[in-house]
C-alpha cells in the first residue's frame, strides 16, 4: 500500500471517481492540494469567484449527469460557495464541494480564515463532513461521491483542515461504502404500481405531471413511451422541461405560475394526476386548497419525504422514476381518450401563448422564438432567474432532457453565466446559450474572465430592459406601479465584454434579430449579444401568488388600447 500525503490522497481519490474536471479558486489553506493538482491529469478551471465554481460544477452536473466538483479555500472562499450549494440542493443536483480549513489544532479559536463551514452548510447540503484524520480521507471522499449521486441526488461538502492535507497515510480507495442510515429505495412497491395502473386505465381525464426527477433518473424515454401508449397528456414543471418532447401533440408544456393556460386548465379538470419526480412546489400548485380539485393523485418519487408534504397523495410509489415506469408501462392500456384530448386541443387552440409582436421594439418572446428556429437539438439553454427565465421556458421548444438548465427551487440570479461555463466544459460540442437579464448578468459577470481565458464558446444573450423585470412586473400589477429600487442604470455591456476580450454586439431593432442571432450562433468563440427590449414587457399568463392555477392573468391588451385612445384624443 503506498503512503501518500492527504493532498495526494485527494487527487488519487478524485481519479478513482473518474473526475475529469474541477472548478475552483485557490487560497492559503488549499495550497498543498493545488500543488498536487498541478501535475494531476485533472483539468482545473480557475473561476473568478467561488460562487462561480459552485454554479459551474452544478451546470456541469445537470448537463452531463455526472457529479460536479468544486474547490474553495477556507473562510470567505467556503462561504462564497454557499449560494451555489443551496441552488444545487434545492434542485437535487449532484455536486461535491471541497473546502480548505484551518489546521485541526486551531479549530475553534477564530484563527485566520477559519469558519465553521460544516455548520453553515448543514441546511443546504445532503450531507457534509469535516475530515480530522488523514486515515479517514479516502473513505470520506468515497462516501461523499456516493451520497451525492445516489438516491435523490444533492450536494455534499467535505471540509479539509490543512494539516490533514499535509500529513501522510496508507492509501487504499475503498471498494464500497457502509452507510446503514442511508438506503435509498429504487424499486417501487409492485402492489402500488398495480394500483396506479388500475387508476390510470380507468381514468377519463388523466394528466402526467413530470419534473426534474424524470431527468435525474434518465427516464425521459420511459415517460414518452408511457404517455404515447396510454394517450396521456403531459405537463412539466420548470425542472422537467425537456423530459418530454414539446413538439409532441401530447405536450402541454409547463404548468404553474407562468405555465400555459392549457396546462393549468388540464390539471384543474383532470380526474387523475400522475406526478413523476416532482415535489408539488407552490409555484406549481398555486392555492393548495383548489389545486386539481377533481383529481386523484399518483405520486412517483425517490424521496419518501416528498409524498404528502404539500398535497395529499392517493397512490404513493417511492422509487426511481425509471425503474417504476419500466414496471408500470406494461400494465398501461392503450386507450383513445378522444373526448379529453379533444378538449385539450380546443384549449390549446383558444389559449395559446401569445404576445404582441412589434416592428419597432424587440419583443423578448420573438427573440426566443427566432432562437428556437435557428438552433438545432444540439443546443443547451442556460438561464438566469426572472423574466428571462420564464420567456425562455415558454417560447423555446425543449425536446431533449438536459437541454434546459435553470435554477428552479432557489431561483438564484447570477446562476446562468457560471453554470453555462460548466455546461460548456462538460459538453464541448454543444451550443451553449446563456439567456440572461441585465440584473442577473451583473451578479456574476466576473466570470466573463473565466469564459474568455478558457475560450469557452458560450453565447450570452442579455434581454436588457434596464430593470429588474420580474419584480417590476409585480410592482406594476400588485403594488400600484410604485417601482421601488427596480430601475437599473447599467454599464455599456458591449464595451464591458470587449474589455474581457469577448466579441459583443447590441441590437434594438426587430429587423436585426435574425441576423444578429445568426452571427452569434455562427461565431466560433464566446460572444455577448445585448438586446434592448421594452421595459414594460411582462410575462403572461400569470397566476397571482395565492390564487388558484386556473385563475390566470392574461396578456394585458387593455392598457395599450387605452394609451392608443389617448394618442388619438
Amino acid at each position: 500500500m503506498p503512503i501518500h500525503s492527504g493532498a495526494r490522497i485527494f487527487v488519487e481519490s478524485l481519479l478513482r471517481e473518474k473526475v475529469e474536471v474541477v472548478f475552483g479558486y485557490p487560497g492559503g489553506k488549499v495550497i498543498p492540494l493545488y500543488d498536487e493538482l498541478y501535475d494531476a491529469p485533472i483539468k482545473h478551471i480557475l473561476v473568478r469567484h467561488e460562487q462561480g465554481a459552485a454554479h459551474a460544477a452544478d451546470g456541469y452536473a445537470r448537463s452531463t449527469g455526472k457529479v460536479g466538483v468544486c474547490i474553495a479555500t477556507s473562510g470567505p472562499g467556503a462561504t462564497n460557495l454557499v449560494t451555489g450549494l443551496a441552488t444545487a440542493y434545492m434542485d437535487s443536483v449532484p455536486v461535491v464541494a471541497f473546502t480548505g480549513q484551518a489546521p485541526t489544532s486551531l479549530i475553534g479559536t477564530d484563527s485566520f480564515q477559519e469558519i465553521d463551514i460544516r455548520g453553515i452548510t448543514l441546511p443546504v447540503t445532503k450531507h457534509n463532513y469535516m475530515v480530522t484524520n488523514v486515515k479517514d480521507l479516502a473513505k470520506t471522499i468515497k462516501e461523499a461521491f456516493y451520497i451525492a449521486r445516489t438516491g435523490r441526488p444533492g450536494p455534499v461538502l467535505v471540509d479539509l483542515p490543512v494539516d490533514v492535507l499535509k500529513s501522510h497515510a496508507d492509501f487504499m480507495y475503498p471498494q464500497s461504502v457502509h452507510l446503514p442510515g442511508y438506503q435509498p429505495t429504487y424499486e417501487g412497491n409492485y402492489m402500488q404500481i398495480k394500483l396506479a395502473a388500475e387508476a390510470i386505465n380507468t381514468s377519463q381525464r388523466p394528466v402526467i405531471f413530470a419534473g426534474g426527477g424524470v431527468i435525474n433518473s434518465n427516464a425521459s424515454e420511459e415517460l414518452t413511451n408511457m404517455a404515447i401508449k396510454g394517450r396521456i397528456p403531459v405537463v412539466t414543471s420548470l425542472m422537467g422541461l425537456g423530459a418530454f418532447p414539446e413538439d409532441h401533440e401530447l405536450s402541454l408544456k409547463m404548468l404553474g405560475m407562468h405555465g400555459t393556460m392549457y396546462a393549468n386548465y388540464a390539471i384543474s379538470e383532470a380526474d387523475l394526476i400522475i406526478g413523476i419526480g416532482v415535489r408539488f412546489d407552490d409555484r406549481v400548485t398555486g392555492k393548495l386548497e383548489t389545486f386539481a380539485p377533481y383529481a386523484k393523485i399518483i405520486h412517483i418519487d425517490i424521496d419518501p419525504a416528498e409524498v404528502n408534504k404539500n398535497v395529499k397523495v392517493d397512490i404513493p410509489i417511492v422509487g426511481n422514476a425509471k425503474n417504476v415506469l419500466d414496471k408500470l408501462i406494461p400494465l398501461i392500456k392503450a386507450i383513445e381518450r378522444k373526448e379529453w384530448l379533444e378538449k385539450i386541443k380546443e384549449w390549446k387552440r383558444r389559449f395559446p401563448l401569445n404576445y404582441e409582436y412589434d416592428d419597432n421594439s424587440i419583443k423578448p418572446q420573438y427573440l426566443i422564438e427566432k432562437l428556437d428556429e435557428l438552433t438545432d437539438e444540439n443546443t443547451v439553454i442556460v438561464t438566469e432567474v426572472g423574466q428571462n427565465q420564464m420567456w425562455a421556458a415558454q417560447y423555446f421548444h425543449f425536446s431533449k432532457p438536459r437541454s434546459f438548465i435553470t435554477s428552479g427551487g432557489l431561483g438564484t440570479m447570477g446562476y446562468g453565466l457560471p453554470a453555462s461555463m460548466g455546461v460548456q466544459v462538460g459538453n464541448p460540442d454543444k451550443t451553449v446559450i446563456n439567456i440572461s437579464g441585465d440584473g442577473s448578468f451583473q451578479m456574476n459577470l466576473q466570470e466573463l474572465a473565466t469564459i474568455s481565458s478558457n475560450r469557452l464558446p458560450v453565447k450570452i444573450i442579455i434581454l436588457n430592459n434596464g430593470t429588474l423585470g420580474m419584480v417590476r412586473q409585480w410592482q406594476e400589477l400588485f403594488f400600484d406601479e410604485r417601482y421601488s429600487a427596480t430601475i437599473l442604470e447599467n454599464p455599456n455591456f458591449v464595451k464591458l465584454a470587449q474589455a474581457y476580450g469577448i466579441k459583443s454586439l447590441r441590437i434594438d431593432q426587430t429587423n436585426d434579430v435574425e441576423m444578429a442571432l445568426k452571427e452569434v450562433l455562427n461565431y466560433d468563440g464566446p460572444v455577448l449579444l445585448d438586446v434592448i427590449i421594452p421595459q414594460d414587457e411582462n410575462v403572461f399568463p400569470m397566476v397571482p401568488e395565492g390564487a388558484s392555477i386556473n385563475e390566470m392573468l392574461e396578456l394585458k391588451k387593455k392598457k395599450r388600447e387605452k394609451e392608443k385612445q389617448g394618442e388619438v384624443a
Partner: protein
Amino acid sequence: MRHILSVTVNNQPAVLARISGLFSRRNFNILSLNVGETELPEYSRMTIVVEGNTDTLEQVKKQLYKLIDVIKITELNQSNMIERDMAIIKVNCGKNQRSQVIQVVDVFRGKVVDFSLDTITVEITGDENKINAFIEIMKDFGIKEVVRTGIVAIDREMNNNVLTNS
C-alpha cells in the same frame, strides 16, 4: 398532540446539530430532546418529544430518515412504553418547613440530596405528570431552581413478544 420518538443515530460530531437544525428549519416543535450513549459505542439514542398532528409527525419521521446519520426511528406508543423524566429541584426552605417538605418528598418517592440553612434540594424521577405535580406543590414553598432531563423512554419488551407471537 404529543409524540415520543426514540431515534438511533451515529455517535459522531455534529449529529445533534443536524437534528436540532432540522427541527428548527422545518418549523417542527420539539418539547424535549435527550441524548445519550447506547449499548453500542458507535450509536447514540435520542428521545425526542414532538408536538404536532399526524401529518406533522409523518414529515418529522421522513425528514429525520433523510439524515445520513439517522439509523432507526421508533415511535413509542404511549400505553406500551416506560417513560421517565428526572428533575432536581432547589426549594426555599427554612428550619421550620423542613419536615413539611420532606413529607411531600416521601409521598412522591423523591430523594433529598442536599441541605443548606435555607434551602433543600430534591431529586425526583417519574413520568412527566408526576414531576409537574410535584413542582406545583413545591411552588408553595418557593422554588429557587429547577433542572430537568426531559423524557427518556423505551418500549416494553413484553409488548414486542406479544406482537411477534401473534
